């Protein structure tokens, strides 16, 4: 069942490939705005790179969260899924996994390219990649709770952002901290471990919270 959900969401997303690309484009554009706003001095850019790339990833994720449940909600599929004997949290987990593959993995892959703009060393680019690889599932998981809570509401993307961005802060701190450690020559390991621990904690409670939120939103 889980595999079917993931597969179905991936197929649907493929039909709307443009959405996937637009998330990546947004990410790249936002990251490029910072040097334009701050100045091209290399040392400065290297210092701000971890934070900038991570914040851009957060914002790009926010944009894609609206789609997580909205499409199925509109055509009635979501209500059908609620009625299946399968536990709802599995459904949520499946959709979240699909969201991660479609919306976040492209970001993770593109990030090292973007990191080159900030004159990061090869080792740091690897750490950037790793931090986002571990951290982006958190974005999808916590985001799913926000998307479920705001299903069908007028506030739209801004409301999801208000709810979810504060909850992302630990991931932001550990993720960008890892990259920053690498830039300064220290070991990024403790940051990555903490990020991983946070990801596991999130994995344990998010699907269940999002499933409850879905039921609440659909009643």
């Amino acid at each position, binding site marked *: 069942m889980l595999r079917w959900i993931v597969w179905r969401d991936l197929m649907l997303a493929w039909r709307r490939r443009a959405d996937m690309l637009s998330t990546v484009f947004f990410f790249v554009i936002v990251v490029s705005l910072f040097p334009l706003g701050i100045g091209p001095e290399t040392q400065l850019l290297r210092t701000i790179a971890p934070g900038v790339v991570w914040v851009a990833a957060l914002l790009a994720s926010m944009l894609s969260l609206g789609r997580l449940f909205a499409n199925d909600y509109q055509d009635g599929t979501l209500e059908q899924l609620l009625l299946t004997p399968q536990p709802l949290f599995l459904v949520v987990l499946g959709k979240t996994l699909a969201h991660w593959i479609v919306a976040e993995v492209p970001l993770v892959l593109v990030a090292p390219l973007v990191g080159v703009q900030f004159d990061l060393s090869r080792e740091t680019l690897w750490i950037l990649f790793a931090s986002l690889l571990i951290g982006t599932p958190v974005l999808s998981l916590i985001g799913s709770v926000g998307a479920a*809570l705001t299903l069908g509401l007028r506030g739209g993307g801004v409301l999801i952002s208000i709810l979810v961005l504060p909850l992302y802060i630990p991931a932001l701190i550990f993720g960008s901290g890892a990259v920053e450690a690498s830039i300064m020559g220290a070991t990024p390991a403790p940051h990555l471990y903490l990020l991983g621990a946070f990801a596991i904690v999130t994995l344990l409670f998010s699907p269940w919270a999002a499933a409850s939120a879905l039921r609440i939103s659909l009643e």
Partner: protein
Amino acid sequence: MFYPIAGKMIPWFAIPATILFAAGMFVGFFIAPADYQQGEAYRIIFIHVPAAWMGMLLYVLMAFYAGIGWAFNARLSSMMASALAITGAMFTLISLVTGAFWGKPTWGTWWVWDARMTSTLILMFLYIGFISLQASIDDPRRADRAGAVLALVGVINIPIIYFSVQWWNTLHQGATIRLLQKPTIRGSMLAALLIMLAACWLYSVAVVLTRLRCIILEREQNASRFAEVGV
């Protein structure tokens, strides 16, 4: 039934609150001496610290009542959570602003990213999220339950967020000196602090009960309006 009882209780909290506020200010300004390091500037803590504590306490209470309301389908409990939110947010705001006012004379800048102020700021965001979510949902039951999920997720995350902010702060400690050093606490200072805390607590009870009564009335009126129209 709760409505009239709450109504009678309110003055029992409101009047002592006012008295204690006055008492706290008196002890804080007339009895407690100036601090050795910070001089008179430290006197801001008499409002800053109680406000900060109330902000955090009320959030936990809000999450508790929301959770109970959701788990046991207890409407009054959920309404209590909604009533707590604005007061909690207000105290958090006071804590942030007075913190800034304390920071400027003691180390020169209006805002400093130390662990405590940053965590308070994030708490403010969590309050804003809860209030915004409930404001966007028309159906009161959905608003109650959605708020409960959000508040519970928030409460679970608060220790994690606090830890990560501490972590972040110690990493970047190099440039900044230890900030917001607490003045050496003398007896009279502690007394003033506790009196003010009690005053804030009593004030909160009075205000939250008043708001709760408003919420009860509002829901009744909305329900009867629908009944009249035959919905």
